[in-house]
């Protein structure tokens, strides 16, 4: 008897679920659903899933709020105003003993000088240099693997580059510091053993896998019909590669480059260990030591008292870094979405 009612209940439940198959979260429970006895823990677990799914959104919000919370008091605290003027964070200032207004980061000087521009210049220098090396390498590699390599080579190369992506950045920093730096100085006669070039080579090793993976995906997703049509029209293979495949995959490749840039500008351990960390403001000389935003936070925060003006400025750097990478990520994602739209609309 009970079995029969249970069966009836299940039958109605089945039609109920059929209607819900459009993959929507269950809304208001109908009478039928509540008369069917699902174990309590199923319902609890479903609620938990819905709540836990919000964790990623919460994390992004909390990261922003709690970094900004440590930086924000700089706008009203009198302690801060006594030591640092807000405009000096960004604008060159004529300090006592200097001949002209300078951009200078010298947090332990007397008076402490907190101009963040040299740090951003340092970050940009290392990042651009790393991009200069990794973009051609990454895209070249992706083209070779996607267009030329035989299947067997591809099956080996892709996991190998994934392996490269799996190397912890502290190990790459160590490699740049111990091996590359000495070798580069002996070969090129750099004045500074640790400099922007050495750090950039280390950085390039972390970005190549990012650019490679996304570009390779993009090139693979170019429909065969396009390349076959071009070949049938008599185009040579290199013409197809450069004039058909690359333009079609361009949004994806651009996304790889943008995301790689974001990765490079936020990378900490490699630049901290291999860039020399001297905040020298020199736009065009790439063989000097540089101090990046990330390395500054990592190296200095440990020695600053909580709530100190220096502490607030370091958290401000964190907020700015977060903002920059946030925008780059959004741009990269949009580019990937555009690629998919473009390629699916064509077929």
């Amino acid at each position, binding site marked *: 008897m009970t079995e029969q009612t249970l069966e009836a209940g299940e039958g109605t439940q*089945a039609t109920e*679920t059929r209607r*819900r198959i459009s*993959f*929507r*979260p*269950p809304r208001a429970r109908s009478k039928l659903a509540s008369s069917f006895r*699902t174990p309590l823990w*199923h319902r609890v677990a*479903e609620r938990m899933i*819905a709540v836990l*799914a*919000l*964790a*990623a*959104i919460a994390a*992004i919000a*909390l*990261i922003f709020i*709690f*970094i900004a*919370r*440590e930086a924000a008091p700089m706008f009203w605290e009198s302690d801060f105003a006594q030591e640092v003027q807000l405009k000096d964070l960004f604008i060159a200032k004529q300090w006592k003993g200097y001949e002209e207004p300078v951009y200078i980061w010298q947090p332990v000087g007397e008076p402490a000088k907190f101009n963040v521009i040299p740090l951003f210049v340092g970050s940009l220098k290392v990042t651009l240099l790393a991009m200069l090396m990794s973009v051609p*390498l990454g895209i070249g590699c992706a083209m*070779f693997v996607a267009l*030329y390599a035989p299947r067997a080579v591809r099956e080996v190369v892709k996991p*190998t580059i994934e*392996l490269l992506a*799996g*190397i*912890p*950045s*502290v*190990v*790459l*920093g*160590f*490699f740049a510091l*111990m*091996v590359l730096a000495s070798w580069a100085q002996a070969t090129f006669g750099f004045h500074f053993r640790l400099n922007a070039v050495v750090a950039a080579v280390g950085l390039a*090793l972390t970005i190549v896998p990012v650019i490679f993976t996304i570009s390779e995906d993009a090139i693979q997703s170019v429909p065969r019909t396009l390349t076959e049509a071009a070949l049938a029209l008599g185009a040579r*293979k*290199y013409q197809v*590669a450069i004039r058909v495949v690359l333009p079609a995959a361009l949004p994806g490749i651009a996304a790889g480059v943008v995301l790689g840039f*974001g*990765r490079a*500008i936020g990378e900490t*351990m490699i630049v901290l*260990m291999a860039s020399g960390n001297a905040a020298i403001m020199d736009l065009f000389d790439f063989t000097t030591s540089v101090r990046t935003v*990330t390395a500054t*936070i990592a190296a200095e*925060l*440990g020695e600053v008292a909580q709530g100190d003006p220096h502490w607030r400025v*370091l958290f401000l750097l*964190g907020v700015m870094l977060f903002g920059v*990478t*946030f925008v*780059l*990520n959004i741009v*990269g994602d949009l580019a990937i979405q555009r690629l998919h739209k473009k390629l699916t609309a064509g077929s």
Partner: protein
Amino acid sequence: MRNTKKDWLLAGLTGLSLLVILLFLAILLGQIVWNGAPVISVKFLTESPGADMVSGGIWPAIYGTVFLTLLMTLAGVPVGIATAIFLNEYASPRSRLAKLVRIAVNNLAGVPSIVFGLFGLGFFIIFVGGGIDSLFYGDSARVWGKPSILWASLTLAVLTLPVVIVTTEEALKTVPREIRDASLALGATRFQTVYKIVLPNAKGGILTGVILAVSRGAGEVAPIIFCGAANFLPYLPTDLRDMFMHLGYHVYALATQSPNVDAARPTLYGTVLVLLMLTFSLNLLAVILRARSRAALRP
């Protein structure tokens, strides 16, 4: 004739870029294995470092790294799997919420690791830890509101969340739609389908994601610099509020803060090799598992 040359040129140039990368990888691994392998011994792996940090072994760092990643996994993996289940099994692909979650996940993956360090300090240590302290221990006490293995692992859990979510979702996607429909048609509820049909079938792929996240978390140093990693600790962490030694942080500290880097060189190479073997074996395991679970699902 010129055209065939151009064909070869493009193939050659792109092939060359691959060779350059493989060459760098080979030099890197070669250097580390060559210099690190002679250092590794049972003594090196099981003893504590001497007071100068250079002599002795690195056991506390190995222990700290494993303990840290274990806590991280316990905290982060359930949340990551739940999010992936929500995205793939419950939310409609067009729902606003699902889109928002996806954007958040992608962005979280791109947040610089040092920013996670600031977050761990500002949120977990100062806000949560400090909050607990002022509630239960009075204002001046510092019981929870200080760097510790608990806060470091929670910070890393947030950092590795996107890895778990993305790989789990991929695993869930490989489960054929027909199996779900069959289960639903037989009268199973959505949750029963997920729990009894989808998850067991996606087990291998989910495990891959967990392993990748562990490997990523084990190698991250920047987030834990202010959140609980210690230069030198004479004891092993037993309490959640203890600080800990860490392989990656040990490498960083020895390479940059040691008074005599030449004397530290063998220990450094040995530590780097241990760290690399740890992350590589995890990655390799993940690659094998993924290949296997894909083969199992192939019709």
